[in-house]
């Protein structure tokens, strides 16, 4: 058995490095391997260098670096499995969270928004891009890659638009237009022209293109039937005018009915809670136009979430006061049937901010214009 000296070990390691093996792990493995072969097979008085050259020569076809290249290739192929795993996990997770979030949203349970947003983010920024990367690797056709890329982009846009709409975030309408635009002008043309040219794919291409066009057209219609800025504007000014009318009438009224004052106080508190959620202020400032404040129709926020929330309890208190008021003024009671003030406490959170504001302002108008107060002011 040949005995290898330390110098010879250094020599081999040096030679391996010089021949392009850079991974330290691989260097050490090869070094030990070569040493073993030499120790086992070389005669005690054999020519070390010559035997070494012959041994190493058997390791490769063209050059030693091949081994490292092969290792790297296998390691990146392993990434493929990791990617596929991530894709499957993120897909399942996002679908699960999204479904659960939808149920929570419909039931008005807390945590719905977080789940929906997380679900959409997982889906559009992890699952869809990963799926695209994997699919692109599988095909060599540029046209197929284009179709997949544009489809993924449209899909991401669609998911984001859904999320922005559900969350009442600004920019949802623009995202919808981007989705429709991408679908109409990028995805459908690319899909159609690559599909129609493919052998035997003609019918398939035509059918799918028709379906895609139909779906996009439906989406386009739906965006345009969503309440526009102009409709929101009308809603806001309509409420503001009732509010101004109320202030004018309250200014002319000097009645000091205790119950009426209570109703007014609670009403103001409820309105300020709604406004706080919608515009971040407890009252609409006089110069709201100059400040660029615009109130969109939306939900009333956490203060009205369930029967125990502050806003809901105020409404319950208000209902009680109205009952007392109506008992005292039986000739001209305040009608509350079929309004938001007629609903059970746990339903209050389902009304929009404008519904609550209009209901409360109207209630105050009833109070201020009650026949006995009008008589009193005469």
């Amino acid at each position: 058995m040949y005995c290898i000296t330390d110098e010879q070990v250094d020599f081999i390691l040096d030679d391996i490095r010089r021949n392009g093996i850079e991974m330290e792990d691989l260097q050490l493995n090869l070094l030990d391997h070569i040493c073993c072969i030499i120790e086992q097979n070389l005669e005690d008085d054999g020519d070390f260098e010559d035997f070494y050259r012959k041994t190493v020569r058997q390791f490769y076809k063209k050059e030693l670096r091949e081994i490292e290249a092969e290792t790297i290739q296998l390691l990146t192929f392993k990434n493929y499995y990791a990617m596929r795993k991530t894709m499957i996990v993120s897909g399942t997770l996002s679908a699960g969270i999204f479904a659960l979030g939808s149920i929570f949203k419909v039931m008005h349970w807390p945590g719905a928004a977080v789940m929906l947003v997380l679900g959409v983010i997982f889906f559009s920024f992890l699952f869809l891009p990963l799926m695209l990367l994997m699919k692109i690797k599988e095909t060599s056709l540029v046209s197929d890659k284009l179709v997949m890329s544009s489809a993924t982009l449209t899909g991401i846009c669609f998911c984001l638009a859904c999320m922005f709409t559900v969350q009442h975030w600004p920019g949802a309408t623009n995202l919808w237009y981007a989705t429709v635009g991408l679908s109409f002008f990028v995805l459908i043309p690319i899909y159609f022209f690559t599909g129609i040219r493919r052998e035997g794919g003609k019918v398939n291409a035509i059918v799918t293109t028709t379906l895609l066009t139909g779906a996009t057209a439906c989406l386009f219609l739906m965006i345009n039937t969503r309440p526009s800025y102009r409709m929101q504007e009308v809603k806001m000014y309509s409420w503001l005018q009732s509010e101004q009318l109320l202030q004018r009438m309250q200014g002319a009224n000097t009645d000091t009915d205790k119950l009426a004052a209570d109703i007014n106080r609670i009403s103001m508190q409820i309105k300020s809670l709604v406004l706080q959620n919608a515009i971040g202020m407890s009252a609409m400032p006089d110069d709201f136009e100059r400040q660029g404040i615009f109130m969109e129709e939306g939900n009333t926020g956490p203060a009205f979430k369930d029967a125990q929330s502050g806003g809901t309890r105020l409404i319950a208190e208000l209902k009680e006061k109205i009952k007392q008021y109506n008992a005292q003024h039986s000739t001209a009671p305040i009608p509350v049937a079929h309004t938001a003030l007629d609903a059970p406490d746990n339903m209050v959170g389902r009304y929009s901010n404008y519904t609550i504001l209009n209901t409360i302002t109207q209630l105050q108008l009833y109070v201020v214009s009650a026949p006995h107060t009008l008589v009193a002011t005469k």
Partner: protein
Amino acid sequence: MIYSTELIKGTLKTIVLKLLADNKRMYGYEITQRVKELTFDKIQISEGALYPTLHALESEGLLVTEVEYIGKRVRKYYSLSPSGKSKSKEKLSELADFIETMKLLLDLKVKTA
């Protein structure tokens, strides 16, 4: 007869996993020698195929390594991780099944030819 590298390539992972399942821990050279021995020199694993495979198996978490110093050089011993143990069983039964299928497929071809 020495089998072609194409034939060996597809089964190398399974061979390595099986050897490590039978022998607690082994190093690269030992693996090549054991295979040679067990197959009466019919299968000779090339270094160019063995080490890339060992590295890939290690990064997949199927193998764990320990290092021992032999004089100035380092010897890396490979052994199966818990997931490697179950994977080796899985791979083995897959290959056994494959061999059965190949028998069937090739026999059929011989008969119809």
